[in-house]
């Protein structure tokens, strides 16, 4: 199959590369409109309070202020996409109340002629707060006596699922391990802060919003609901996006809704931008988890039972209270063939900044626990950790116990084999390197991550392929590109199907007035779910072209073939017509026809195939300071088929960088509901000089349901890093840290307790 492909599998230049290296690419933050107003949010100074009275009179009389909106008028949209499934759910997307639930929760918004005046006017708003008792710890929040953060209580969602018989499974085990793990509140840290939207409400009742959302069609529906507008009256245009990673999955809390209300009040375009501090303190972050994991295993290393209890802190609001917990369960349960599994999970409100979608969506948390535990099992049984994984992972032809979805492509073995070889696992494992106070160690982890949302949420995708007279093509899709490069990848898929060059395809910008329904860029789904519909739409267009040529040449369509821009009769190649000639004839030449060849496809992907991955890490730990340096990382990911290998490598290395940060340095420090590290000095991301040598290996298992065999990649790449690092640290210094991030302090503390 490989030799037949001409565009797929090539690292072609990304479409947006030129605009991005010349400074021409316009991001939300770069946009301006004539007669535009500037908006700012007044945020709550309290973690939990009732805004009993919000007096905006003084602010409104500021000479340069044009409008003020409060939470009494504008709803908080706390929707999850699954709520769109029912009428009841749609009605309850919006929440109206005057309670603030975390420090930084919006109370009011001001639109003024300039940003400084808007800022000034915020201090003129008098809010009378009645403070309510706060609760910051999810375990405290679960108690009967805890203050209630929402009317329904503090449990946003809970789930209990059991497969097989867990108690019996534990009785069959030779060893049982039980541990508690906690994970941190990692922030996305997109370099363009999560903000900047321009809402422009026209007096014709149409609202146009420039927003960097990952899901333009979903937020179109949300905003229509929030403003009581027919859905066709809302238009979302997506500019270039300076990083998303899940943080722009739905609406940004307080951003688009407030901006739209201000625009409707003034009839003018209104722009709102957050500072970096606002981004850190009041936009979504990764959910911290507390995980109690109990694993039963035979002395041969076969898992007999697994019980997971997870408490997930969702913060003040829970737009992903269901999704992230369920995805943690799905990926946690699917990874290993264990016949007896139980998952008990609680999503719990606390008076801290809200949590949401973040690259790998619940998987990094659960994987940290699962894969730390597997390492302990391997040590206890004296089995090579790689061998232990090979014995237990759920492979080809096996069914996901939750959804019944079959694993149709399985690159796990190849991932483990290739990455371990590249890393030198067998060699490095047996060597003990110590120099002065530095100790080296190695560790590994594996993972699987479902592509897209096929079995849990509405997940439509659509594409339109339109032929131009010269045989070139315009591809229309709402597959929002946040920088991953999916527009280029989708063009490659269309080009391959049509048998033309990728540069003969242009891909539309995302504009919901024009681009058909797509559930957005989430769950690493665009190459897979987007790819499937793009391939179908291209096939439809090709069919229509052949059919037109068949009529023109008077040859049956099944006898026609296209090659090098010519449609010809396979039995009599002299009977032929050039593609551009027939297209010109159809569009312009024959005045009685006048039509364009268009292919359309819309629908959901048939599966959510697991992306497999393996990480091998070498660390160096300083036993005097507790400092950890990641020396080397070799990783392999089974992406089905790499449509654009350079993009895939970019995803892998970038994801691993986020994973290393998650393991070692990152996490919001929240004290009494207040974020203490709201800047890049106190919140430490990896910098260029902190990066280890990374070997990124692509494995291609050919997913039969995907376009040209493709699955996804993006999210899997940071799902397994933390456990591999934790395991390497243990190997180096004998310290097992079960809390993320694994800071110097935590290592030192554990080292001291060893003494």
């Amino acid at each position, binding site marked *: 199959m490989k030799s037949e492909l001409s565009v797929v599998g090539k*690292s072609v*230049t*990304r479409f*947006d*590369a*030129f*605009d*991005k*290296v*010349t*400074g*021409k*690419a*316009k*991001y939300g*933050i*770069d946009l301006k409109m004539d007669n535009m107003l500037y908006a700012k949010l007044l945020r709550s100074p309290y973690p939990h309070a009732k805004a009993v009275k919000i007096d905006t009179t003084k602010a409104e009389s500021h000479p340069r202020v044009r409008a003020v909106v409060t939470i009494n008028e504008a709803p908080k949209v706390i929707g999850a996409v699954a709520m769109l499934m029912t009428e009841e759910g749609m009605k309850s997307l919006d929440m109206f109340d005057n309670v603030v639930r975390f420090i930084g929760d919006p109370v009011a918004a001001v639109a003024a002629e300039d940003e400084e005046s808007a800022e000034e006017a915020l201090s003129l708003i008098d809010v009378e707060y009645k403070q309510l008792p706060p609760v910051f710890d999810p375990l405290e929040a679960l108690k009967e006596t805890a203050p209630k953060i929402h009317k329904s209580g503090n449990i946003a969602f809970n789930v209990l699922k059991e497969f097989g018989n867990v108690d019996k499974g534990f009785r069959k085990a030779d060893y049982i391990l039980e541990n508690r793990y906690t994970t941190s509140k990692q922030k*996305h*840290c*997109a*370099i*363009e*802060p999560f903000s900047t939207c321009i809402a422009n409400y026209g007096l014709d009742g149409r609202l146009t919003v420039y927003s960097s959302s990952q899901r333009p069609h979903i937020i179109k529906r949300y905003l229509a609901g929030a403003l009581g507008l027919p859905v066709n009256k809302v238009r979302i245009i997506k500019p*270039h*996006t*300076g*990083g*998303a*990673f899940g943080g722009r999955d739905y609406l940004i809390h307080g951003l688009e809704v407030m901006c739209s209300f201000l625009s409707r009040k003034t009839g003018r375009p209104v722009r709102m931008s957050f*500072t*970096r501090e606002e981004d850190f303190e009041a936009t979504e972050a990764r959910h911290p988890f507390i995980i109690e994991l109990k694993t039963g295993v035979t002395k041969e290393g076969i898992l007999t039972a697994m019980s997971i209890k997870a408490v997930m802190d969702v913060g003040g609001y829970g737009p992903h209270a269901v999704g992230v917990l369920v995805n943690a369960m799905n990926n946690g349960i699917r990874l290993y063939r264990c016949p007896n599994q139980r998952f008990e999970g609680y999503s719990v409100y606390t008076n801290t900044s809200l949590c949401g979608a973040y690259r790998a969506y619940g998987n990094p948390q659960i994987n940290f626990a699962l894969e730390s535990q597997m390492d302990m099992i391997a040590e206890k049984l004296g089995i090579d950790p790689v061998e232990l994984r090979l014995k237990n992972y759920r492979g080809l032809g096996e069914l996901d116990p939750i959804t019944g979805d079959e694993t149709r492509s399985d690159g796990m073995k190849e991932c483990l084999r290739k990455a371990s070889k590249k890393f030198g696992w067998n060699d490095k494992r047996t060597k003990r390197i110590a120099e002065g106070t530095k100790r080296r160690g190695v560790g590994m982890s594996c993972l699987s991550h479902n592509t897209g949302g096929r079995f849990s949420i509405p997940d439509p995708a659509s594409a339109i392929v339109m032929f131009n007279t010269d045989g070139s093509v315009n591809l229309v899709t709402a597959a929002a590109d*946040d*920088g*991953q*490069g999916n527009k280029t990848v989708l063009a490659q898929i269309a080009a391959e199907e049509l048998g033309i060059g990728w540069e003969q395809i242009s891909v539309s910008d995302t504009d919901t007035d024009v681009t058909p329904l797509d559930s957005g860029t989430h769950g690493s789904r665009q190459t897979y779910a987007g790819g499937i519909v793009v391939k179908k739409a291209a096939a439809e267009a090709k069919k229509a072209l052949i059919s037109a040529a068949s009529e023109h040449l008077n040859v049956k369509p099944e006898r026609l073939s296209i090659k090098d821009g010519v449609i010809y009769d396979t039995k009599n190649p002299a009977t032929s017509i050039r593609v551009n000639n027939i297209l010109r004839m159809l569009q312009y030449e024959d005045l009685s026809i006048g039509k364009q060849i268009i292919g359309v496809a819309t629908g959901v992907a048939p599966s959510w195939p697991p992306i497999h991955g393996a990480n091998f890490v070498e660390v160096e730990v300083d036993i005097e300071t507790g400092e950890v340096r990641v020396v080397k990382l070799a990783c392999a990911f089974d992406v089905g088929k790499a449509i654009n290998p*350079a*993009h895939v*490598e*970019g995803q892998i*290395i*970038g*994801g*691993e*960088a*986020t994973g290393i940060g998650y393991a070692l340095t990152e996490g919001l420090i929240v004290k009494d509901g207040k974020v203490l590290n709201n*800047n*890049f*000095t106190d919140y430490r*991301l*990896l*910098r*260029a*000089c902190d*990066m280890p040598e*990374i070997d990124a290996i692509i494995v291609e298992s050919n997913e039969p349901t995907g376009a040209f065999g493709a699955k996804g990649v993006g999210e899997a790449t940071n799902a397994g890093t933390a456990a591999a690092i934790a395991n390497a640290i243990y190997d180096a210094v004998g310290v097992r840290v079960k809390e993320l991030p694994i800071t110097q302090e935590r290592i030192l503390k554990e080292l001291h307790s060893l003494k």
Partner: protein
Amino acid sequence: MAKVKIGISVNGKCYELDVEFYETLLNVLRNKLGLTGTKFGCGKGECGACTVNINGEAILSCLTLAVQADGKEILTIEGLQNGTKLHPLQEAFVKHSAIQCGYCTPGVIMAAKALLDCDPKPSEETVRKALANNLCRCTGYDKPVKAILEAAKTMRGKHEK
């Protein structure tokens, strides 16, 4: 307070501007001159998205007051290409797919430009240190570093000819 008159050269073009004494160069570039290629990321000099070259040095424009730039030559990402011809750094970033969201890219390229102008043959370690001011959340720095090393080679080749 009265505004201050300054004269700056940006991408070879001279501007006489009235600025507030507290106004940052970043604000002047983005909001007065419409050069939005230089990005805002944090406003505190921690992320490097606003990096420009001033008299050949990589400078954080969010920490530089416009009045400090008076009389100086500023180069931004918009001034790097020569007509329709990309600078070797830009070419290398395109070729190596060293871009994802692209938001940090202008700052990274401008930091690299200043480095290569004074050190035409940097080691990988030197490149990584020169980028220590520039945060990137997408790429893990690998492809940008490779692109910079290749651009250095291309630029050396040109000089040697």
